[in-house]
């Protein structure tokens, strides 16, 4: 059975169907890309899985347990981590404190009023930062980091709870090409090592084709295609609504294939 099962998921905003009955699965150890034009319902789908939005219908099951109706923090406790399109970290905390915060929460120590937070789970937090290559910056304010680094810190935060499923909303948006590759290679490694399932949205086609095991395409709230990179690239409907002629990205893809 797949780790995440989505069946007939829908969401309407004041009569407008943003997501109109979609089904898909994500298996453990799989990187699944969710792509589609702006306004296709990608973020809405994402936010329903995460609990930030309540689905109008359908079901989202993690390991057979229903997630619809649960709050984000409850879904997190069941092993779903997430990163945001515009990275969300705690700006007034240091890098390591950001990760410690997630660890404090996962150990149920949020309401401790008298102990000192600075030392709590610091070593574990440093270990996680080491995994994403941010250990050297541990004691810098999170607000002072470059954007790509903030995204890596966010990943470390999301991993603090040892999640089964990771949701990443445009993980490489606003990053330099080398950073993109580093981050996605890191994610890929985590998927393999931890048998993690990852669902991500992305506009950068080079990233999608290079790293996704499988992809699904959303347009106007419906799933119009699903399959491997090759199948999606040659899918006429996807070309029409999403890729266009491919002029603006074809070359890098071709080059990568040559390189690979």
């Amino acid at each position, binding site marked *: 059975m797949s780790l995440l099962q989505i069946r007939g998921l829908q969401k309407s905003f004041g009569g407008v169907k943003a997501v109109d009955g979609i089904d898909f699965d994500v298996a453990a150890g799989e990187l699944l890309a969710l792509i589609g*034009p702006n306004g296709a319902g990608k973020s809405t789908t994402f936010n329903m899985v995460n609990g930030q939005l309540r689905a109008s219908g359908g079901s989202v099951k993690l390991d057979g347990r229903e997630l619809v109706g649960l709050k984000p923090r409850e879904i997190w406790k069941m092993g779903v981590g997430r990163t945001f399109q515009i990275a969300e970290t705690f700006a007034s905390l240091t890098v390591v404190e950001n990760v410690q915060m997630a660890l404090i929460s996962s150990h149920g120590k949020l309401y401790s009023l008298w102990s000192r937070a600075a030392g709590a789970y610091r070593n574990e937090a440093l270990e996680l930062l080491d995994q994403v290559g941010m250990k050297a910056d541990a004691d810098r304010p999170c607000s002072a980091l*470059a*954007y790509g680094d903030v995204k890596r810190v966010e990943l470390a935060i999301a991993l603090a709870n040892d999640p089964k499923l990771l949701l990443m909303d445009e993980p490489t948006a606003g990053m330099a090409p080398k950073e993109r590759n580093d981050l996605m290679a890191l994610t890929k490694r985590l998927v393999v090592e931890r048998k993690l399932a990852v669902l991500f949205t992305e*506009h950068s086609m080079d990233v999608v084709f290079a790293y996704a095991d499988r992809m699904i395409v959303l347009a106007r709230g419906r799933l119009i295609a699903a399959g491997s990179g090759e199948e999606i690239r040659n899918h006429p409907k996807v070309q029409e609504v999403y890729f*266009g002629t491919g002029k603006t990205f074809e070359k890098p893809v071709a080059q990568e294939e040559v390189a690979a």
Partner: protein
Amino acid sequence: MIHREPPPTLLTVEGLNAWYGAAHILFDVGFEVKRGEVVALMGRNGAGKSTTFKTLMGLLERRKGTVKLMGQDISGRSPSQIARMGLGFVPEDRRIFTDLTIAENLEVGRQAARRWPDDSPAPEWTPQKLYDLFPNLKEMGPDRLGGRMSGGEQQMLTVSRTLMGNPYLVLLDEPSEGVAPVIVEQMAHMILALKSQGVSILLSEQNVHFAELVSDRAYVLEKGQIRFSGTMAELAANEEVRRSYLTV
């Protein structure tokens, strides 16, 4: 467009420095844009492209250097004065007035028609012309609220809104960032269409392929300094620059 003499320079930037708070972002940046040209300012995220645009527009308080628009110094002026002198700005994050309708968004950008120094009329835009250029906008009707449009449609509206000011030169910040490939392609078509109507454009871009589709020349920015300038063909040939500073 055919010019017997070399086209006159629209924008000249020399020794431009800018700061965000205490952080020094731009270091002695210099470049120029000639009339009728589409020039790409390239570089990765954080290289200083958006900062350059904001500095040109007068949106950063701490800045130094000379910026001349058709020979007139605009470096010390306020954003509204600079816009009134004929520099148009399309921001990266679109910044549509979501509570205003399409027609009202265009109205906000409206300025009087301009003439070139040789007294020939500069490109002049009306809502009608813009609706013809962007049929999507026309389809939605003038009373659609800006907030009820998709990202790609907003991108067209924000360009149209700036064109309503009849600028001599448009600064187009990251037109291809964060939109679907199919929209990116539309953006490329749009830029070429504008160019054919005599609009000069300075665009910031990370995506080499997009820039190659639309621009005549490029400057490459890295850590707040210009590291390369040349034609698109020269850039395509320069493996070193492409590998070190750009999205390939």
